[in-house]
């Protein structure tokens, strides 16, 4: 039996700055994962990933990452994706500094 589809977000890095961004339901790229579109359907996820990959002048390396619904919007389920929402742990650099 194929594995059940788990909710996803589309994420990538911005071409010019290189920082992590997520795709919103209204086709924007946000640096705040909670604003991202949480995709519950596999066909939709493929469609949204193709859309993201077509934005090569804005982002690099788009992929689907597992996520779950949180109180304020999508949240990461894996530690790697959690680090991408914050920045490194040795300095207050990256997104945690901008918040």
């Amino acid at each position: 039996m194929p594995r059940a589809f788990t909710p996803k977000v589309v994420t990538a890095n911005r071409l010019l700055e290189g920082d992590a961004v997520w795709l919103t339901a209204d086709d924007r790229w946000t640096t705040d994962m909670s604003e991202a579109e949480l995709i519950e359907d596999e066909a939709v996820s493929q469609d949204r990933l193709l859309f993201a990959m077509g934005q090569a002048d804005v982002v690099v390396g788009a992929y689907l990452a597992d996520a779950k619904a949180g109180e304020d919007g999508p949240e990461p389920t894996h530690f790697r994706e959690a680090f991408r929402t914050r920045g490194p742990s040795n300095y207050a650099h990256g997104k945690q500094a901008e918040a």
Partner: protein
Amino acid sequence: MYQYNDFDEAFVRERVAQFSAQVQRRIDGSLTEDEFKPLRLMNGLYLQLHAYMLRVAVPYGTLNGRQMRQLAHIARTYDKGYGHFTTRQNIQFNWPKLKDVPQILSDLADVEMHAIQTSGNTIRNVTADHFAGAAKDEIADPRPYAELLRQWSTDHPEFQFLPRKFKIAVSGSTHDRAVVRAHDIGLEIVEKDGERGFRVLIGGGLGRTPIIGKVAREFLPEADLLPYCEAIVSVYNLLGRRDNKYKARIKITVHETGLEEISRMIEERFSQIRPAFTGVDQQLLGQIKDAFSAPDYVAKDDDAFQIAYDNDPLFRAWVDTNVTDHVRDDHAIVSISIKTPGQTPGDATAEQMVAMAELAESFGYDELRISHEQNVILPHVARADLPEVHAALRDVGLAAANIGLISDIIACPGMDYCALATARSIPVAQDIALRFEELKLAHDIGPLKIKISGCINACGHHHVGHIGILGLDRAGVENYQITLGGDGTEDAAIGTRTGPGFAYDEIVPAIERLLLAYLDLREGEDETFLQAYRRVGMEPFKAALYPEKEKVDAA
């Protein structure tokens, strides 16, 4: 130090112009990412977890003050005020913006530096003993050979698309400080019947399949260096596996082909190409050697040193751990620890870089080295000047007296920065260093090399750590495997896994149990951790690491 000639200068400037245009074309949409990626990688530009990362080559780890100042300038102007010295004697900037990279490369070119071939399937920065030219046990300075190899390998048309990256290290001493046995080609300068040559090792490497290099030639005459290396890379270029990234390094080629057969093929290729090397390379080598002649040492009376050593305990502790005997008795080699407990191993701020540049200019004949252990070396300092050097280092937080001790940890950037990482390395290194600082056990424990990698690629050299730590992703949780008994010196050995890994919050207590067990079982203060491990083997350490399992087994 080697200085660029007109050809080098023109080549690097041309590459900056070329890459600037490529960046522009990427930004304006004329190049896709698929087209751009190999171009940016050829120029050392990676895209990591949070930002781009630019890896700048420091050839064989040698820098002058002006170059170090320029690295500080780049850190301040285009990055977040610091740089990260790596286990390949390079420096990485973690936060450059794509549009700034051409200007950074231009600033680097102003001081004869670049980021060419710091990535991609090419011959990478040639590394060397960081005590080169200063070590007491040195047969010859390895840097002229490293520079010759750098010139030969840079933009070599045959070797721009190798099956995989290719790393060469050169050592000129009897004691191996350059981990030559963990390189694709390891070169050791040796002398036979008064003639200088090399012991050539091939197929060493860490990563997924760690293998100690094997001797391909016990003695290679000096004049045959380039044609023989070219023969090795040429045979590898044909045989190396391009079907599987994990089997593409020459260590696998040597393993699958067999040392005897691949040596035969290398010798055959060598005999074909040797006549084409008509001696121009040797003329060039002669010029390069002149550039690396010893500095004009100034003899100084070392009374000031003795007074400080006898009266200042902090200075004495620092000298005892961080200062090494020099080829001249009135000089010393200073290892500046970039490992103050709690700090990120290998990270130096712009202010610290400027301070180190000033020290090199004032007291060190304008020479600096980056070590593969992520420290900075002042290779030639008059003993009389050591108190002043120490005081200046204290002012900028660089006087940690811990070289070779437990807190002198190699750690790769891990998942705090690296897109390939499977777990974090840096906070584990920070926590181990701080914990043992708190326990005040560093000096009791004595010489110890802990090396941490955040993934199987082993940039943190964990396989050759006396204690190696490998961070993995186990079912979505960070997990750390421990290996014991690794050694990166001339007695190179790959560490052995202790057993199941430890969770992120269990790894520091596990290391503590391990070292308390060592203190209990050692035969005396002189028996190092590595010697004790070699004497007693894995079992007592396993018992300390997995006390619960012991109980279960006993029941």
